[in-house]
């Protein structure tokens, strides 16, 4: 039926792609295998045990750290979505004197590496913004605002681009009976931009959940995220590989679940900068 040479070529492609799958999934297989072995079984290379999970619960306040991760991530994502949707609406549909310059300045924020600002940021958050009853440093709010400041430039860019694509007629029609800007934003813009908001939220969720540096510097040990907790455990004196792998699975699982559900949004956000 088909050109046999072409069939062979396709079979060869299939084999190559399978090899790549092995290379890409192998670390996951290693993680799972190691996590279900005791330390001795890990060394000898066979067996099954749940010791590592018990050990993990003993050595690491996993539950507290998962709660911390959830609070920090949810807080950052909510703050980013709020400021970027409002900002996107302003830049795309309302405008003000100098709004395009301000928009460009915010976009330029994407080019600032975290490490370039981390020292003054650390000093500001731990000293300047940490006086009286208003304490940013060490607890959730400090880490959340830093994450939000780092994530918002791209989110604002994405939301502005999305809102520019919404026809202005639609807004006019919906405010004929005296809607305020706030109502337009809430009743028209937000519902219409659910796909874009989802993309922003998914990208930022993975970004914040997986981050180490900000959590390491801005959160006290008692409120550390799971990612920070694992990194610290890794660099500690006693290293138990099965325990670390159990912890890795636990920390990776939420992000993997989000990834599997929202793969499409993730890809949309990623290729946003080039496909238009």
């Amino acid at each position, binding site marked *: 039926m088909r050109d046999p040479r072409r069939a062979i*070529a*396709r079979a060869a492609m*299939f084999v*190559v*792609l399978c090899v790549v*799958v092995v290379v*890409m999934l192998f670390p996951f297989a290693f993680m799972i295998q190691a996590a279900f072995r005791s330390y001795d079984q890990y060394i000898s290379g066979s067996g099954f045990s749940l010791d590592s999970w018990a050990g993990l619960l003993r050595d690491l306040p996993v539950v507290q750290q998962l709660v911390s991760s959830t609070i920090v991530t949810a807080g950052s994502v909510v703050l980013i979505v709020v*400021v970027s949707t409002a*900002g996107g609406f*302003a830049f795309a*549909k*309302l*405008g*003000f004197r100098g*709004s395009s310059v*301000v928009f460009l*300045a*915010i976009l330029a*924020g994407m*080019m*600032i590496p975290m*490490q*370039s*600002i*981390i*020292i*003054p940021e650390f*000093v*500001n958050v731990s*000293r300047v913004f940490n006086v009286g009853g208003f304490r940013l440093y060490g607890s959730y709010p400090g880490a959340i605002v830093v994450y*939000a*400041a*780092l994530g918002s430039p791209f989110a*604002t860019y994405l939301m502005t681009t999305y809102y520019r694509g919404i026809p202005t007629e639609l*807004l*006019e029609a919906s*405010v*004929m*009976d005296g809607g305020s*800007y706030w*109502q*337009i*934003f809430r009743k028209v813009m937000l519902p219409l931009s659910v796909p874009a908001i989802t993309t922003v939220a998914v990208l930022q969720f993975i970004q914040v959940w*997986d*981050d*180490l*540096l900000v959590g390491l510097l801005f959160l006290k040990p008692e409120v550390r995220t799971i990612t920070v907790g694992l*990194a610290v455990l*890794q*660099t500690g004196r006693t290293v138990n590989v099965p325990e*670390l*792998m159990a912890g890795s699975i636990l*920390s*990776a699982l939420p*992000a*993997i679940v989000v*990834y599997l559900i929202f793969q499409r949004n993730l*890809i949309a956000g990623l290729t946003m900068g*080039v*496909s238009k």
Partner: protein
Amino acid sequence: MTMIATPAADGIAAARRGSPRAGGRLQASQRRAGIAFALPVIALELVFLGLPIVQAAYFSFTRWDGITATWIGPDNYERLFGDPTFLRVLENNLILLAAVPIAILIPLLVAYLLNEHVPGWRFFRSAYFLPTAISWVVIGMVGLRFFAAEGILNHTLDAIGLGFINTDMLSGELSAMIAVAITFIWSVFGTNTIIFITGMATLDREVYEAARVDGASAFTTFVKITIPMLMRFMQFAFILTLITAFTALFSLIFVMTGGGPGYGSTTLEFYVYQQGFQVAVFGYAAAIGIVLFVVVFAISLIQLRIFRSRLD
């Protein structure tokens, strides 16, 4: 004007007509709303991104311990460029730079194969993209076990009878950096593959059919059609990968090598952290951070130029 005039409707209508002066008082209310809606993001970015980058620039000219800063002019920068460790660190960034073309080329080839839609290609695509969801901490932890002396790589080599090339990669300066670079290539593979698949989906299949009818080989079509038509996507992937290499590997290095042995795998971004939070010379660390900022900014400007030149 509209029959039922609301400030919102008039303002937006005026904006659509492209006449910013039209609407008078109504236009002013829209401007005020614009400022109000933009204010949260402006305030957030000013205080937590704009302020610290200006401070970093200022403090890079001082001796600073976090409380008192003494102005010392360009001393930090002079010291930096005479610092052999800094030059060593720059070399490590060059190794990462050298890894970028590999991190582009492999995904390009694999995307080309995926685009042929052999059975199971959707599964392959998801599997390749999966590491994107995993933190650098977890990737580093597995990477560490992979390259360790008693690790997976050496065990595998033993098992297939190649035990004689066993090496303890993480104990040598250059080899540790190469191990980090390989792990980095693995990590960005999925992202770049997705970018190229997206790019290939935009290509005209008829061009391929025509090439096939003309008897062009797969290799010829790849080099003569796919690559030139994907230039935009390759540039995007290149810049994204390069910026990732220079600014996103802190956690990977922290977990895998701690920057060592010696300064063997310390890159610019890691050097900022070491000097700032381990040595605690804030002014000096700020100067390193500014160098990193200038490098990243320059890369981004090149990208902007490329994009603009295409629009013209």
